[in-house]
C-alpha cells in the first residue's frame, strides 16, 4: 500500500501537531474551570482569552468579545438563525441559497414547514453563481434573517457575501454567513463588513472536531441557543471546552500565517491537478465558478461513470477524495449542489471532489495525476453508456466544459 494521500480537507483536516502541543497542557496541567476563583481557573481563563484574540485576528473582527465559542459549525448556524428569528418575531420570511450545507438548508426547510416561515431559496446558475436579481427581489422588511454561505463545500465557489450583507442593510435584515469552508483559506476583515453573524468550525482548519465559533457583530441582537451559566457573556452556556478553544486559537494563528501558502502554492497545485486531469481524460469538466473560488478545491465531473466506484478505486491507491454521487451518501439522488447547478445526470453522478490543504505536496498531486486516467478508463470500460456512445457521443458532449 503506497503512503496515504489525503485530498478530502473540505470534509475534515488533520489536527496540526502544533495545535495538539498547545492543547495538551490544558488537559493535564491547566485543567481548571475558567469560572473558578483560583490559580487553576486563572490558567484556563488566560488560555481562553488568548484564543479569543487569536480568532479575532484571523477574522479581522473589531472586538474580541464578538467571538463566541461553540461546539462547531452546525451549532453556530442554528444559534445564529434562531437568534435572528427570536429577536425579529414580526418578520416571517427567511432568505437562503439552494446550495447551502444541510446545517442551514434543512433547518430553514424545517422552519418553513413547522413554523410557517416563508422561505426564499435563491437559485444559482450553471457555474454555481448566485442569482443576484432574485436575491434583490427577495429583500424586504418582512425578512427576519438571511443565511448565505461564504464558500461552497462541494465546488469551493465563493459568494459575494460582503456585498450581499450591504444590500441587506437597507431593510435592517440580520445577515448570517456559514463560513466554515472560507475561514482560514481566504483573508477576511469583518470589522469593515456588514456581516452580522458568521459561523466557523475548528476541524476545517486543522483544529479538532467539536469546537467552533460564532462571530456576533457588536450591537447585533442575540438570544442564546443554550441557556444556563454566564459563560461567553451569557450567549452560550456550558463550561468552556478549554483544550478545544486553545487548539482553535492556535489553529487560527497558523491559518493566518499560512494564508499566503494557501493562495499561492496550494492554489498552483490545485490548478495543476485540474489542468492535467482535463488534458489526460476526455469527457470531464470542472464544476463551479472557476474564476472565483477557494484556492484548495477542485470538483471535476467525469461523465458516464459513478462517483462511489471512483472513490473505491482511489482508496485502493491510498488516495482519499469525495463525491457528490448519490451512492456515497445513502441518498438516492446526486448532491443538491450539482442539481442546483443543472449539471446533467450523465456527469453529476461522477462528480469527484479533491480538496487540498497546506499539508498537500507536489508528490501527492503527481500520484493522483498518474492513477486517475486508468481508474476512469477502467470504470468506463464497464459502463454501458461509454461503449454505446463512443464514436458518436455528440448527444453527450459536455455543454458545461
Amino acid at each position, binding site marked *: 500500500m503506497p503512503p496515504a494521500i489525503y485530498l478530502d480537507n473540505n470534509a475534515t483536516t488533520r489536527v496540526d501537531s502544533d495545535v495538539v502541543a498547545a492543547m495538551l497542557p490544558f488537559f493535564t496541567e491547566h485543567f481548571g474551570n475558567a469560572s473558578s476563583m483560583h490559580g487553576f481557573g486563572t490558567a484556563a481563563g488566560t488560555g481562553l482569552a488568548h484564543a479569543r484574540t487569536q480568532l479575532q485576528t484571523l477574522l479581522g473582527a473589531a472586538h474580541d468579545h464578538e467571538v463566541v465559542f461553540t461546539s462547531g459549525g452546525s451549532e453556530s448556524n442554528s444559534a445564529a438563525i434562531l437568534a435572528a428569528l427570536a429577536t425579529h418575531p414580526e418578520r416571517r420570511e427567511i432568505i437562503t441559497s439552494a446550495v447551502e450545507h444541510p446545517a442551514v438548508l434543512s433547518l430553514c426547510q424545517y422552519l418553513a414547514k413547522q413554523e410557517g416561515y416563508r422561505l426564499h431559496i435563491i437559485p444559482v446558475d450553471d457555474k454555481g453563481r448566485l442569482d443576484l436579481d432574485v436575491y434583490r427581489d427577495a429583500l424586504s422588511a418582512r425578512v427576519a434573517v438571511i443565511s448565505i454561505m461564504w464558500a461552497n463545500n462541494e465546488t469551493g465557489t465563493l459568494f459575494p457575501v460582503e456585498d450581499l450583507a450591504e444590500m441587506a442593510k437597507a431593510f435592517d435584515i440580520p445577515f448570517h454567513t456559514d463560513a466554515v469552508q472560507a475561514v482560514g483559506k481566504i483573508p477576511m476583515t469583518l470589522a469593515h463588513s456588514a456581516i452580522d453573524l458568521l459561523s466557523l468550525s475548528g476541524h476545517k482548519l486543522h483544529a479538532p472536531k467539536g469546537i467552533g465559533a460564532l462571530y456576533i457583530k457588536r450591537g447585533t441582537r442575540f438570544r442564546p441557543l443554550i441557556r444556563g451559566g454566564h459563560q461567553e457573556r451569557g450567549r452560550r452556556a456550558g463550561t468552556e471546552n478549554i483544550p478545544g478553544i486553545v487548539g482553535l486559537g492556535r489553529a487560527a494563528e497558523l491559518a493566518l500565517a499560512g494564508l499566503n501558502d494557501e493562495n499561492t502554492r496550494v492554489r498552483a497545485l490545485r490548478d495543476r491537478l485540474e489542468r492535467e486531469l482535463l488534458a489526460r481524460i476526455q469527457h470531464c469538466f470542472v464544476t463551479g465558478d472557476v474564476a472565483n473560488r477557494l484556492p484548495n478545491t477542485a470538483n471535476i465531473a467525469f461523465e458516464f461513470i459513478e462517483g462511489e466506484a471512483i472513490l473505491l478505486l482511489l482508496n485502493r491507491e491510498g488516495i482519499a477524495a469525495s463525491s457528490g454521487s448519490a451512492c456515497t451518501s445513502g441518498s438516492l439522488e446526486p448532491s443538491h449542489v450539482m442539481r442546483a447547478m443543472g449539471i446533467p445526470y450523465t456527469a453529476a453522478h461522477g462528480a469527484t471532489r479533491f480538496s487540498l490543504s497546506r499539508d498537500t505536496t507536489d508528490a501527492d498531486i503527481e500520484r493522483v495525476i498518474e492513477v486517475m486516467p486508468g481508474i476512469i478508463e477502467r470504470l468506463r470500460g464497464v*459502463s454501458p453508456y461509454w461503449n454505446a456512445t463512443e464514436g458518436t457521443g455528440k448527444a453527450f458532449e459536455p455543454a458545461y466544459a
Partner: protein
Amino acid sequence: MWNYSETVKDHFFNPRNVGVLENPDGVGEVGSIACGDALKLMIKVAPTENRIVDARFQTFGCGSAIASSSALTEMIIGKTIDEALTVTNQDIAGYLGGLPPEKMHCSVMGAEALRAAIANFRGEAVEADDDEDGALVCKCFGITEGLLTRAIRTNALTTVETVTAYTKAGGSCATCRDKIEMVLGDVNAEMVSEGILESTKAFRYRGRGLADTAPTTTPATARATAPARPAAVRPSHTAAAPTPASAPAKPAPPMTMVKKIALIQEALEAVRPTFQRDGGDVELVDVEGDTVSVQLFGTCVDCSMSSFTLHMVQEKLSEALGRFIRVVPADGQAA
C-alpha cells in the same frame, strides 16, 4: 465508507464477465443514467436444453451495483433458463455475503435485468411486457407496480423505508409515497392470506384492517387494490411465492403505436406553452420503443437548464403513458 463484505469488494475490484457478448440470445437492460445506476445483461443460451452457456454485463453504478452484476453472471452461467428464473435478488445478495440495507436495490436491479434478459430470449415483446408490469408508481426512478410487488414479495418487505432501499421508489421527490403505501398494503395483505406473512407484521394502508384491502372497495382505490391483477403477481418469477389459486385474468391489450404517438403528441402540446413563454419551442421527432426524441428550438437550445427541461418533459410523458418514457434530444443537439 460502506461496510462492504470481502466478496463484494472482490467482485468490484475484479469483476467477472465484463463486456459485450457478440450475438447474444437475450439482452436485459434496466435502470438509466438519471437513476444513478443501469445494467445491461447479455446471455448466450445453448438450444438443446435452454442452458445459459455465457453471460456478460456492462454496469453504470456504484461498487455494489458492479459487484451485484458480476455475481449475477457467475450465478447464472451453467443454469437452464428455468433454473435461472428461480434466482432472486436475495440469492444475489446472499452470494455476495450480504449488502448494506441501503444498497439492496443493487441486487434488485440484477434480478430485474435477468428477468428482462430471459423475457427477451423467449421473444416476449418488451413493450407488451411493460404494459403488463402495472402502473408507474415512482416517476423519478421509473418504478412500476410490478417491480414493487416482486421486491416486496421476494424480500418480505413491510415498511415504506425498506421498499425505498430495495427499489429506490420514493427516494427522490417522495410524492408517490401514498401510492407505495397502497401497493405495500395490498401485497402484504395477499401475503398474509397466502400464509407467507404474519398478519401482525403486515403493513396496513392508513391503518386499515386487512379485510378492507379486498378488491371490493370504491373505484378510487380499486386500481391500486387489485390483488388479482395478473401482472402484479408473477409466480413463475418469484421463487418464494406460491402460485395463487385464482386463474389470472386476461391482460390488457398492448397499446398500438398510433395510439402511443397520439398520446405523446397530446402531452407535448400541453407543455409547449411553457416553452413558448420563454421564447422557445419543442417538437416531436421520433419514437423508438420507450425512447422519444424531441427537437428544442429558439432559446431552449442553448439554455443551461435544457437537461432539466427534458427531465420535466420526460415526467409529463411518463405520466401520460403510465410508464417510464426516456426523452432524448434529437441528433445534433447537446443534452
